[in-house]
């Protein structure tokens, strides 16, 4: 996507003038939106992508970013010369102008709309909202599957434009209508994108139950692009966390974190925050290095994670006072991340952890001392109930002696005599098998690569060898049966 930073209004206008027919209704409005001025003649004006690649987009996923990078490969000789004078023209690969057939394609027009949208969005121009609405209106006149990929991108930027300017709620009815249309036309890419956009919309306004209702009723389309799947898992993880289903939430969020592309640092940061809170709620304390050194993004990311680091420290110590201090100090940060209520729920985990430390350290301790250590205060008998509940929930292994008002910890039992090691093994084995299955499902045919004839022969020789080997192994297996 490096060319996106180099996109200027002038280059865009050049592209628009060259690639759209004059009879095209959107042409003039697009040119106006882009600023209307073509670049001065002497400089070569590299086109962002050769038109031929565009029409072959077809059913490909939204790896549109990857495609752009491919196209940019052909560009670099030209852009290198741009910095200097026009002298470098001789080395530039002249871009192929679009043929008249390509100019008449609606895909070209859709692509032009998309480029204008990108330009306006990157410049934070409020015009982008109306531009996106116009683009969608124009595209709704067509019913071509080849337009699906472009339309999905345009819908995404439509929602983003409105979100940037705070008008997300107005977008909801049109998103719902678009989703209906996409489902009717079996437009899988559109369905996927719009479902994610709708969930984002609901979650933005904290309407978790509506998001969940939509997600449970909507059909999940079969083709999942990696980026969309990451987003979907993130939103699902958030909903599950609010609904108190922490194990599901943790699974979704960690999967999203794994699948996310390396460049998506902000996304990874958000995920780390949520994963930390969910892990704390589950009772496991994340390592300190997960929140400091292992985080990509450098100092800025670590600063953003600082409230969560302190939260982890407070929970690990089981110190209620410290927990309350952290909660108050970083309230603004938690509110911005929408994790305020989750953090409030952590109070119980703090108490539980503190109790566990006490029960491990002492074989018998009076309840008043327990209250003092936990910071619960002298709440006449409350500590007894808290300990009793912790014992009942299986958090600690102890008994209470009511008359003596003491808590006796039970001796640690031998773990290997229980079923726990098997359960732990089973979890890991199941995970490995799942990963294997997913990897197999995700396999794709390799791209056709042109090779010389010499290589061709060598390859087929290798193939023949492999086949022979396979035959031998199969024969051996058959022998073993006897």
């Amino acid at each position, binding site marked *: 996507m490096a060319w996106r930073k180099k996109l200027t209004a002038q280059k865009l206008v050049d592209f628009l003038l060259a690639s759209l027919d004059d009879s095209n209704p959107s042409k003039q409005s697009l040119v106006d939106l882009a600023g209307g001025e073509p670049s001065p003649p002497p400089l070569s004006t590299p086109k962002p992508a050769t038109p031929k690649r565009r029409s072959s987009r077809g059913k490909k996923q939204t790896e549109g970013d990857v495609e752009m990078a491919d196209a940019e490969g052909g560009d670099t000789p030209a852009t290198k010369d741009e910095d200097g004078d026009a002298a470098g023209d001789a080395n530039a690969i002249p871009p192929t102008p679009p043929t008249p057939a390509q100019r008449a394609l609606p895909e070209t027009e859709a692509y032009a709309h998309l480029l204008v949208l990108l330009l306006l969005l990157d410049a934070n121009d409020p015009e982008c909202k109306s531009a996106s609405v116009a683009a969608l209106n124009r595209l709704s006149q067509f019913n071509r599957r080849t337009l699906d990929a472009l339309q999905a991108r345009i819908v995404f930027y439509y929602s983003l434009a409105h979100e940037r300017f705070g008008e997300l709620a107005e977008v909801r009815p049109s998103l719902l209508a678009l989703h209906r249309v996409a489902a009717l036309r079996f437009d899988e890419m559109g369905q996927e994108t719009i479902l994610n956009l709708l969930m984002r919309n609901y979650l933005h306004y*904290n*309407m*978790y*139950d509506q998001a969940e209702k939509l997600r449970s009723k909507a059909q999940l389309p079969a083709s999942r692009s990696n980026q969309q799947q990451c987003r979907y898992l993130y939103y699902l993880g958030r909903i599950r966390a*609010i*609904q*108190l*289903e922490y194990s599901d939430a943790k699974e979704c969020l960690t999967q999203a974190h794994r699948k996310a592309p390396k460049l998506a640092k902000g996304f990874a940061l958000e995920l780390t925050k949520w994963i930390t809170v969910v892990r704390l709620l589950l009772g496991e304390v994340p390592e300190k290095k997960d929140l400091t050194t292992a985080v990509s993004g450098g100092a800025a990311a670590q600063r953003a994670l600082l409230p969560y680091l302190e939260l982890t420290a407070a929970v690990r110590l089981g110190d209620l006072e410290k927990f309350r201090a952290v909660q108050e100090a970083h309230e603004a940060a938690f*509110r911005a991340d929408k994790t305020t*209520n989750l953090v*409030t*729920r952590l*109070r*119980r985990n703090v*108490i539980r952890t503190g109790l566990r430390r006490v029960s491990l350290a002492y074989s018998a301790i009076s309840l008043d001392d327990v209250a003092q250590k936990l910071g*619960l205060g002298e*709440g*006449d*008998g*409350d500590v*007894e*109930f*808290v*300990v*009793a*509940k*912790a*014992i*009942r929930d299986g958090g600690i292994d*102890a*008994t*209470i*002696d*009511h*008359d003596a008002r003491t808590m006796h910890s039970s001796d640690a039992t031998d773990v290997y005599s229980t*079923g726990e090691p*098997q359960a732990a093994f*089973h979890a890991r*084995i*199941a995970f490995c*098998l799942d990963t*294997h*299955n997913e990897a*197999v499902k995700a396999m794709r045919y390799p791209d056709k690569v042109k090779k010389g004839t010499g290589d061709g022969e060598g390859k087929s020789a290798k193939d023949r060898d492999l086949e022979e080997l396979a035959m031998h192994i199969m024969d051996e297996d058959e022998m073993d049966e006897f």
Partner: protein
Amino acid sequence: MADIATAKKTLDALKKAHNSGDAVKAASLLGTLKIAVSSFPALPPVFEQTKTAADELSIARDTFEMAVLHAVTSGNEAAAERDHAQLRPFYVDCRGLMPDSKLEPLITGLNLTRLLVQNRIAEFHVELETVPARVADSAHVAHAVALESDLMEGAYGKILQASMTPDALPAKEYAAFMASLALTVREEIAACIEKAYESVDAAAAARLMGCAPADVAAVASKRGWRGDGNGGFLFAEEKKAPSAEDIPAHELINQTLMYAKEMERIV
């Protein structure tokens, strides 16, 4: 046509009847008022912009608020849930169209407490997320959140105490919920006693559960506690000798079969 004046009069009469505790009259007035309100064109989801739109919206909202209060005081939880569901669009969608209701914190607090009493904790939290900051800081919602926190931690003493002293509650309407909450809490305490104590005598059990000794006997017989002869209860189990039944055979078989199936699968 929207008959605003008569609706307003009925609404005032309803408020008076509710405040004076006249449940029957309140119920009948509520019925008439709901029918009148259903003919207003300016309500969601139609939102027709008539001249009297703001009036219609506020009358409708007040009607449903009174309906919720009435349902709560007469102990009808299902009706309270329905009326709150009808009331929610007025809070969420019509926020900018008319001045905020003074009863909103109370209604929200009551709804959250109702969810808590019915043990629908997940929905409680989802509702809590949708509550705006201004309402969330009010005493009512803070009270509901504190109750949930106490329930989760196990600070049952605080809850029982709160249910005994009605003055500590932010509003008298909570009293009905606190009674059922106290019952839930007692059940929880009984379950905790079973696990946490090896033995407990009757007086201690009564004190823990915050009820009279006679009730203790009733609970004990219901839960099957073993008596130790003195009126106390024993909970420690005899240690059984390890036998072949202790091995989770089914589970292990299932797991191993799954491994075999996955490994042998040809894709």
